């Protein structure tokens, strides 16, 4: 009986088959943009191409903080040394904005990043700069740790998501497990209720997160590849809930990764020193 596509054992079976076909190997790690259970995600669509062998380690809900632990990086390094992938695809950072917070158990960390609504302030001025700068620093340091441990073994490709939407739609797992929403309740708790203004605040968040990634690429051009996904998804058509694209939306994003795997990864690999 064929197993579910999200089943880790099934994924290993497909990887083993593709490896026997001597397809170029790619290791993937990260969150639900690579491991969305209810429908095909980015890596599922890339697998559909039949051109790469994907060793998949991603887990829906994972955070950069968890991925960058010494134990996890050690495990990944062991696999990378054995499998020698062309690159590591990493999807991470989004869930770090939605970790639980003690002062408001019904909300998530993104509530801390927001200030109470003030009609006299711009979207950017509604971000709590102290809290948001601290979070960006945490994420950046975790990514630096990842680069330090794995960057010398294979180039790391990281995306900065597209502009999220405060739709208030829950995430449905396998038809019955529900989670969220996370963004809309936090914004409404701060009195930010105007949808266009909510979108403007989220644009600032995503733009600044992408700037962090772009800076890391400039600092580590031989081991870090930043993929800009902003503007890939249509807000009206391509979002299933607050933080996940639809099946077609993920396919659109996957096309950008095809270009990265075909062109940018080989270009970076050509300038890297061979792994001893």
């Amino acid at each position, binding site marked *: 009986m064929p197993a579910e596509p999200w089943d880790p054992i099934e994924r*290993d079976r497909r990887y083993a088959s593709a490896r026997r076909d001597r397809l170029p190997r790619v290791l993937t790690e990260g969150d639900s943009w690579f491991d969305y259970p209810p429908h095909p995600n980015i890596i599922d669509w890339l697998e559909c191409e039949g051109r790469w062998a994907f060793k998949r380690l991603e887990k829906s809900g994972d955070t950069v903080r968890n991925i960058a632990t010494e134990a996890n990086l050690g495990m990944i390094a062991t696999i990378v040394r054995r499998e020698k992938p062309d690159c590591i695809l990493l999807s991470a950072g989004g869930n770090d904005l939605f970790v639980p917070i003690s002062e408001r158990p019904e909300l998530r960390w993104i509530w801390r990043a927001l200030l109470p609504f003030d009609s006299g302030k711009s979207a950017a001025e509604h971000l709590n700069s102290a809290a948001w700068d601290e979070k960006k620093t945490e994420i950046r340091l975790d990514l630096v740790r990842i680069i330090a441990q794995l960057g010398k073994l294979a180039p790391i490709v990281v995306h900065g998501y597209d502009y999220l939407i405060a739709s208030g739609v829950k995430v449905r797992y*396998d038809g019955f497990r529900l989670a969220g929403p996370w963004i809309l309740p936090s914004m409404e708790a701060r009195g930010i209720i105007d949808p266009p203004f909510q979108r403007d605040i989220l644009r600032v968040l995503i733009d600044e997160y992408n700037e962090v990634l772009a800076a890391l690429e400039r600092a580590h051009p031989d081991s870090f590849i930043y993929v800009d996904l902003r503007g890939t998804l249509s807000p009206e058509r391509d979002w299933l809930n607050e933080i996940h694209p639809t099946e077609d939306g993920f396919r659109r994003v996957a096309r950008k990764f095809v270009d990265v795997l075909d062109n940018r990864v080989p270009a970076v690999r050509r300038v890297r020193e061979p792994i001893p």
Partner: protein
Amino acid sequence: MKTSAIWLIAAVVMPAAAAGAQRGRLPVDDSLGVLVGLVSRPVWRAISLGDETAVVSGIAFPVRYLARGLQLELTGTTNLGRDAPRTTDQYSTSVRYQIPLRGGPHRRSVIVGASGYWTPEVARTVPEQTVEAIGAVLWNVGVEKLGIRTIGLTLDAARDLRRENATWLSGAAMISGGTTFPRVTIEHSIVAVLRVALSASDYRGPVLADTPRPAFGSHSADAVLEIEYGRRRPAGTVATRTAIQVGGTARHRRLGPDVGWVGMRYSVLFF
């Protein structure tokens, strides 16, 4: 009849293989696997092989050096109650060739092959030896709006080539849901799988054993619920699955009364 079966297989394989060759390399199910289990009442295509507990076993291994997607499978059902009436052990050797048509989301495959059966038992309810041609079409669909990732649909066909050219046809649907519990060094998964099938055939069955072959028609309606625990090491090359199963078969009267069964299975996959 045998010639027409060969032409039918060729008519499916050749265009499918040509279509597959135009795409990237889609993965095939070609890992080495071993399984062993117990079942309270062994049933093969709704035909009872016994009324007491039996051991089921099997091994599947790829034969890539001959053809990519080619797999050899050996399976066995051995009744533990040797003195019980209507007891039939059964052992089979199958050669299956998988042609993947679509990979990734909503996978689709065609499988063609042949199976040989040996039933070394006194009170036989199926022929002692036979060979059959087999074919299957597998395709996955999803219902995005309901968050249903996969409904697995299967159409199986088998035609006996040696004895009386009996045919068996089965359409099945499978749906599953589960979750994973990842740790750094070991990943656990729990999956519940429900499979339902409707089958048609012109098998005689044990009740009509001495009569002319019946017309092609109703064979059985089957349902199986399986709860499976999976375990793998992300950095490893071996995974295990442990499953418990509850099944029931409502079958045409020529095959005997309706039957239910429970079972458990342990399997190991080598990547």
